[in-house]
């Protein structure tokens, strides 16, 4: 068993960290304050292929392995969780199913512009009355003889405000009255698709999360991803991968909290010496570091299982569960280390504290992850 990153992965981490610190860090505070999605960063990383992490070169992607893709998401999230989220969702739950389940037409027409960063992707599952329980979905697709007609409303769509390609999870009711689920690729400019205003979020600000509603939206059959009724299995396999991405994001947040706290603890002088010399602070830093590292290894394990094509549902749920808890814990301890200054916007820890929380909620709440894990244990 080899748990060490290889030469390429070391260099990828260093390169992305440098890019994030030099080009993204200066934008983060404003992004958080105004909720503005930084276009200048988008074009910068598009050129560097952050929008096509695991997509092969012939479709315009970087062709990375799954662990390297996690490292990229981690390092972007270490500086800006909101941009890490954008990249994670775009790659993990929008591009991934298109690449695995898409036909040649779909790959050429949707993957290529997405991998180039010209078009950002979303995965639209959650509805006002269906969150963790996906079977309660109300969005419908009706076949009118030549096209599908979609109706329904999706909420909390990550990347929604800037998306070009949206994967819409919807139900098809057969003549016998049986409901099956199907995924559709719906372009943002398609008539009948309407975006709501970006949500005023507690954290992850700058990622334009919004609702997407479909009102008699006519979608041709070549935009159906996979077969009719294949939606649930595509969604489940997509979410397994998506959870690894969110796990990587949470690890990045935890690392960002740790790095900020080490820096602060060394600089902050109280009682005539650096607070890093105090046992209580040292203990908090040690806990943060240990939990971050444990979560990181779980995430990489899940990613490498997926890379090898092995079953990784339980592993990705474990990774996502522990990584998001590590992020929330690291933000909490990190803010405590910062004391009063941590409660101000002068330091990034306050933002991390708000950003971290949602990791325990989206892509399946911690409760859902426990359910997935326990089902695998008890089956």
């Amino acid at each position, binding site marked *: 068993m080899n748990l060490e990153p290889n030469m390429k992965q070391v260099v990828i981490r260093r390169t992305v960290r440098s890019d994030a610190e030099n080009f993204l860090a200066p934008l983060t505070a404003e992004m958080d304050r105004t909720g503005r999605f930084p276009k200048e960063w988008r074009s910068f990383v598009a050129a560097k292929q952050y929008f096509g992490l695991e997509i092969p070169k012939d479709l315009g992607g970087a062709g990375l392995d799954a662990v390297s893709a996690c490292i990229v998401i981690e390092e972007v999230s270490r500086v800006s969780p909101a941009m890490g989220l954008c990249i994670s969702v775009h790659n993990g739950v929008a591009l991934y199913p298109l690449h695995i389940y898409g036909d040649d037409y779909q790959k050429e027409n949707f993957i290529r512009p997405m991998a180039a960063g010209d078009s950002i992707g979303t995965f639209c599952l959650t509805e006002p009355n269906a969150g963790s329980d996906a079977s309660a979905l109300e969005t419908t697709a009706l076949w009118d003889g030549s096209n599908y007609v979609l109706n329904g409303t999706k909420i909390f769509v990550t990347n929604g405000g800037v998306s070009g390609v949206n994967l819409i999870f919807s139900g098809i009711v057969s003549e016998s009255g049986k409901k099956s689920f199907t995924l559709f690729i719906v372009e943002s400019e398609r008539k009948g698709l309407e975006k709501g205003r970006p949500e005023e979020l507690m954290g992850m600000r700058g990622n334009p999360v919004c609702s997407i509603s479909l009102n008699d939206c006519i979608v041709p059959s070549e935009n159906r991803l996979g077969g009719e009724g294949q939606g649930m299995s595509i969604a489940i396999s997509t979410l397994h991968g998506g959870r690894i991405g969110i796990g990587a994001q949470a690890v990045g947040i935890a690392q960002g909290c740790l790095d900020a706290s080490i820096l602060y603890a060394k*600089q*902050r*002088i109280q009682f*005539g010496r650096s607070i890093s010399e105090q046992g209580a602070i040292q203990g908090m830093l040690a806990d943060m570091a240990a939990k971050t590292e444990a979560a990181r290894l779980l995430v990489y394990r899940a990613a490498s299982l997926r890379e090898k094509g092995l079953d990784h549902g339980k592993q990705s749920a474990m990774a996502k569960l522990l990584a998001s808890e590590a992020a929330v814990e690291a933000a909490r301890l990190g803010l405590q280390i910062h004391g009063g*200054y941590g409660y101000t916007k*002068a*330091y990034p820890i306050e933002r991390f504290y708000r950003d971290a929380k949602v990791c325990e909620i989206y892509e399946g709440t911690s409760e859902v992850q426990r359910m997935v894990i326990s089902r695998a244990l008890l089956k």
Partner: protein
Amino acid sequence: MNRGSCLVWVFGDYGDYFQNRVTLQLIAKGKSLAAELDTRLGVVVLGEDIGQYVMEYAAHGADVIYAADHHALKDYDVELFTAVVASWVGIYRPEIFLAGATVFGREFFPRLAKRLQTGLSADCVALEIDKESGAFVQTTPAFGGDLLADVITPQHRPQMATVHPGTFRELSHDPFAIAELIYPPVPELPPRKIEVIRRRQERAHKASLKDAKVVIVGGKGMGSKANFEKLFQLAEILDGEVGATRPAVDAGWIGEERLLGQTGKSVRPRLLITIGTSGALQYTSGIQGSETVIAVNRDPSAPIFSVADLGIVGDADRIVSLLIEELNRRL
């Protein structure tokens, strides 16, 4: 003293005559090394119409001056200079040869050392003859200055070093001092391959606060926004950048982006001049990497003086104004 020998040499810095005191500093140090080795100190001067430099070096303590006053050597060229000086080293065989670690010294001396197939240590901060072994110990900073490496050149001669400017103190100017002036033969010169087609008296690169070699920091003691702004003039003259303490930022005299210390940036310039700052730990933690600190404060008990290499007890604004005036006069 062995009147015959002259085995410690200093190169008279060409591109930076009189803009740079390092040659004079090296003459002083070289002279004391020469005394320990019972020999004399020589200075090498190349150029055209170099009389004034010869006088200057003699006045500052050179025992011997090896000069070439030659039209072809009017402008510095690394290959021409290497050819001349290497041939002279072959004739006189000095034991020690020093140059300032200036832009010039650091491009010329490596080439010369290679031609002579000898060792060279870079940017030394101390030079001494080890009492026990007699070795010429060249101390050079390593790992970004956190470590010092004591380097020796056991077999090869001359033992060459470039020296950090400001390391040694020059001798006082003695207009009546006399040096032996030698014009060694100038060898056949190689062709010039490099042509300087333009020279501009300005800096291409404006260092950011974090990379600046000189940082001027103002605190609440500057008294007013108008006074604080004079720091920019001072920084301009010294080719530095301006930083500020929390009270100056809070007073609205300057933006947050120039804040130094715990809640701001950390800097490690060659020189930091801190003016009207009391020296709170929140601030000084951000400047502790500075090589040299000059502090100006009205209060002689201000804690800032405990981190200063030079403490000036005086009125911040008055000192700044006078300093700008004096520096402008010299430009």
